[in-house]
């Protein structure tokens, strides 16, 4: 999908107008950001906005997020086990200490892969 964000009042107004005029292309909208369907028409609208407002319009392409495809097993396990912890007040870095769970810094240093962790179920 295309995420379009407005950074000035005029850009926000034009984005609102586009959102209202082409509701069918809009997946969701939040304040001054709109998520458009990934179509050439939506790209056309996004480019039109950028042609008019320049850098005051940010356009990003989003990808669906599937943790089974793009996140290593260790990270998935970490999330599950941390949310199932018994003591609410324990911060993650302490929870992960002395376990086989990944520490926050190593996760911060590892860029998220695209679909490289996918292993079909047996």
């Amino acid at each position: 999908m295309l995420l379009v964000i407005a950074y000035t009042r005029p850009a926000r107004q034009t984005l609102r107008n586009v959102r209202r005029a082409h509701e069918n292309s809009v997946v969701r909208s939040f304040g001054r950001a709109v998520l458009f369907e990934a179509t050439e028409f939506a790209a056309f609208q996004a480019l039109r906005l950028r042609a008019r407002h320049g850098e005051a319009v940010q356009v990003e392409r989003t990808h669906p997020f599937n943790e089974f495809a793009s996140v290593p097993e260790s990270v998935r396990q970490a999330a599950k086990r941390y949310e199932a912890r018994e003591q609410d007040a324990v911060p993650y870095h302490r929870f992960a200490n002395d376990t086989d769970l990944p520490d926050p810094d190593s996760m911060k240093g590892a860029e998220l892969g695209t679909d490289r962790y996918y292993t079909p179920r047996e």
Partner: protein
Amino acid sequence: MASPIITLAVGSLARHGRALRLGRAVDPAVVCAAVRQADPVALGGTELAIEAPTPGSVHEFVGCIHPGMGLRIRTALAQAGRSRGLSTPHDETLDDLRAALAKLDPPQSDTADHRHAVAEATAETGRLRERVATARGRVAAQENDDDGSDRERLADAIQELSEVETREAATRERLARERSDRRRRRDRLERRLELEDRIANLERAARSHLVDHLREEFTRAVAQVPSIEPAPSHTDEPGPFDVDPVTAALAIARIGDLSAPIVLACDRFVSPQAAHECLRSPIIQV
């Protein structure tokens, strides 16, 4: 407040007074332009010059009153309050926020250069990455060549690999720099937008404060200016602001301090003098 004497000159014929009539059919907008600017305006083969105090901001709303005019009544009424020196509890914060906004760097109007730089660096990085891979392949192929007969070609391949790698790293750095610059510029835009939104909200609050303060006075003024009979109602539930634009403009002109003359192109008053007495401002009747 004594309203000032104005001078109205058509060609070389000048008249002075507080309630003047322009003895010919002219576009009121042209006369209003002559009120608002120091230079004379062209008027049917001659020139019209008006000497009067500089109009304040409420003049923009009710400085030219004619049938068919539109009027944002609440905004105009708030400006009339301002023209009399009324203040609101929001003014101090508004001043601070406006000062903070003025201190921000102005947004760059044309950032196409930056976008080109990012696009170029992105494309270049991709190209160079491929060349690095190719060069690496060539080095590997030469090394695996057991007889070692072609050491020169291996050296060449290593040399090229190192050059391309250096360029790739430099381009990647440039790309990272361009991207972080862009993020900073957008951070600044975001800060500006936040201030602008807060200012707009406070301006709305200040306006309703002034309107609330002047509501009763406005209702009285509407009764004191000549209106058309019967007054048409625009809604089922008539409120103080449910009046036609001309009546509202006359009432607001009576409340506010315009100092500059009002250009009147309606026939509500028997004479310019009567209009002057009712509206307490200099009048130019057309």
